[in-house]
């Protein structure tokens, strides 16, 4: 079947099997390999992308289900060479080791900050509880989200 999606603002059209998973569609067709696959069962969150701004697990979503929706992946965060504050925060606070969960964590926490610009630590922990990081013990991820929230607020004040 022909599937047409908008990924990072770009229209992508491809003839795929109805069973094709969104994560494979994203990785194969536009070749955006930042979105990872980690568990098959919606537990790990390495595959999280945003659909119309809401985080979803692309390993248990069919590409065909996303027709007419806007998909955003980790590759959309940096704009014109400017890192998103959440990307900067992960770097500043050492919130990644192997980097495999990072794209999913970035998209999950980007969505959190869009909804809730000043989350508490507990709100951050709840927001990322659908994602597994095997390396960091989460502490620095929480700190990174806090960093991004603080700097985003400062950035908006400047404007």
């Amino acid at each position, binding site marked *: 079947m022909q599937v047409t999606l908008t990924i990072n603002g770009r229209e992508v059209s491809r003839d795929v099997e109805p069973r094709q998973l969104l994560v494979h569609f994203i990785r194969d067709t536009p070749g955006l390999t930042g979105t990872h696959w980690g568990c098959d*069962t919606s537990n*790990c969150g*390495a595959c999280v992308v945003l659909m119309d701004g809401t985080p979803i697990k692309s390993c248990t979503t069919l590409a065909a289900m996303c027709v007419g929706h806007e998909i955003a992946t980790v590759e959309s965060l*940096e704009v014109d060479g400017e890192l998103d504050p959440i990307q900067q925060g992960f*770097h500043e606070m050492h919130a*990644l080791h*192997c980097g495999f969960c990072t794209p999913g964590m970035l998209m999950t926490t980007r969505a959190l900050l869009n909804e809730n610009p000043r989350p508490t630590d507990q709100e951050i922990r709840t927001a990322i509880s659908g994602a597994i990081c*095997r390396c960091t013990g989460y502490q620095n991820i929480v700190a990174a989200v806090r960093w991004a929230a603080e700097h985003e607020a400062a950035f908006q004040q400047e404007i």
Partner: protein
Amino acid sequence: MAVTEENLPSPRQERPIGFGRLKRKEDARFIRGQGTYLDDIRLPGMLHGALLRSPYAHARIVSIDTSEALALPGVAAVVTAKDLETLGLAWMPTISYDTQAVLAGDKVRFQGQEVAFVIAETEYIARDALGLIDVEYEPLDAVVDARRALHEDAPLIRDDKEGQVDNVASPTWEAGDQEATDRAFAEADVVVSRDMIYPRCHPAPLETCGMIADFNPETGQLDIYNGNQAPNVHRTVYAHVAGLAEHMIRIRCNDIGGGFGNKVPVYPGYVCAIAGSIVAGVPVKWIEDRTENLVSTGFARDYIMRGEMCAKDGRITGLRVDVIADHGAFDSTAQPTKFPAGFFHICCGSYDLQAAHVKVKAVYTNKAPGGVAYRCSFRITEAVYLVERMVNALALEMGADQIDLRMRSFIAPEQFPYETTTGWTFDSGNYAETMKVAMEIAGYDDLLREQADKRERGELMGIGVSFFTEGVGAGPRKHMDILGLSMNDGADLRVHPSGKAMVSISAQTQGQGHETTFAQIVAEELGLPPEDIEVRHGDTDRTPYGLGTYGSRSTPVSGAAVGVVSRKVRDRARLIAATMLETRPEDLAWEKGRWYVRGDPEQGAMIEEIARYAYSGEPMPEGMEGGLDAQVIYDPPNLTYPYGAYIAVVDIDPDTAQVTVRRFIAVDDCGVRINPMIVEGQIHGGLAEGIGIALMEVITFDAEGNCLNSSFMDYLIPTALEVPEFELGETVTPCPHHPLGAKGVGESPNVGSPPAIVNAVIDALHQTHGVTHVDMPCTPARVWAAMQGRPEPPQ
């Protein structure tokens, strides 16, 4: 240069030239989603492989019919053991001198064992074809319990091995002095014993295992893409298995999505991918799914232990340990050759014992092979769990405070270097000091008061302590090898004419930040900015030989190699500088980045100037060739012995038996910290894993050998909601023999945290419920059972 207090680095600097909290260089690609993990690599004409796995734990294979699968459009080949036999690849060596079936031909020996390999145009088609392969099995009685494996009536698992008449995997291995230990127990005032299990768990890195093999029939060159922790060792194994010269094989690791020991072994899927590429003449990619990762690749632990500990005059004096080690169907554990039970005999702990004796017997069962680390240096995790549980058992029996008993029994600072009763030479330590720092951070006395108050109110709160000493950085070539390869690491440093530098190493990062840390070592030693130093790793064609990254050995061995090679370059630079400055080398003194004339500090040459000179047309010192580079292979004189004091505070819900880790205090002494930010990150990660192991993570089987934890739905990994904000502290006791004074640290938190948590659980329940032991994982069901007076061991 010996490390002394005067020349300790200043690790708190933000943008250091050398040691300190430097932000990671590798982050740039990862935060943009630009890492290159295995599945991100696509080669032209590449086909995809998938493995058919056994549904039975133990069964004879009667027949395999692949015709229907072969007829499926898009399927290129279906490989079985018969096909591999013609290539001589049906069996492969493990890294413990055992053999393992690549594809099962005679019978299957664990659920999930590899039976057939399909190669097809897409992964979807390859997996479709698996369902079309018809295998007829004749089920056999399965051995799941390692104790039962030793029974006379247990079915023989390894009938493929000539002369194998039982399920014993290796001769009983012993350490320590049995007679002296018997004497210590005879003279003791108090003796306790405990049976405990360190259950099977799994490293489960977020990226599963896989390989792309690309064999070129024209040139005979085999290119391999495979995230593994020891690329040079793997290349040597493939060279032996495939009969190729090492230089005809190139392994590129690129980025690895976590390892934790899971990516140390050679797996059957790798050999299948290589065989598939040889057969198909095109690149073949094989990547396992999560279930395959959990049911078939290197598990960890699975030690059934009995410990006895004794005390005299209020101090711990003796330890006796008897272990049955479950190795699964094939012995593919990774240990140095002379240490079949790894470093388990470090279970004498941090205490000045009179005597200790350890026995380990390894058995085969119808379970997945492994016994490889899960962030554990060669069974030290099991050892530390055993001894730290025993110390608390003894403290309970003596009515002593768990910290007091440890304080009274510690090896004293003046006893280092300290020969343990089981043959280790601990390098340095001040244990009591580290314990005190942990008590201070915890507010230990306040915690005891809080606990007493809560008990009065019927609330269950526990305080658990552990104090570990690890031996990491294997190891000295006279003692330690894997498959006959000495456990040394190479480093190759080139300073270019521009003053930029590249250091090639044989350690292999899986997230530990080598590109940053190793650049900092060169920066510290040569005074170059770390951003000007490129660290090259993960490509066997472009890096020196060495044994890779596991067992916390990167900094102790490879880091030392980088320190030594930098000093070699600095020494060469001194000779060149003397010629440049028209003086004698002995008249020059070093400050970071510069040789200068003693007594005339204005006269000097920066390392960048020396590099430019070394490649120029100017005259070199007599007998010296041009250029500024060096290489070494570092042979560590001893292991390094990091240690730490951990305190866990848990709350247990009296109605549901749910354990919550409310606080966790970790004070690590890993010697000099090259990048404290990365060290702390490693500790955070290992503590989370330790909480997982203590409370949630376990691989269990039913009586027929069906794996009950084959996805993340039932192999539970802590999320951000199960781990607290960690409270870290540090003491710094430099390693006397490491060139940088550093010790390993990566595994310490995983080693030290499970006993602290279990000790806390028991501390919470002993007085009110009489609980003296609970096996891990301390799930609500198991803790509840223990509270009702019927403790349950894991299967």
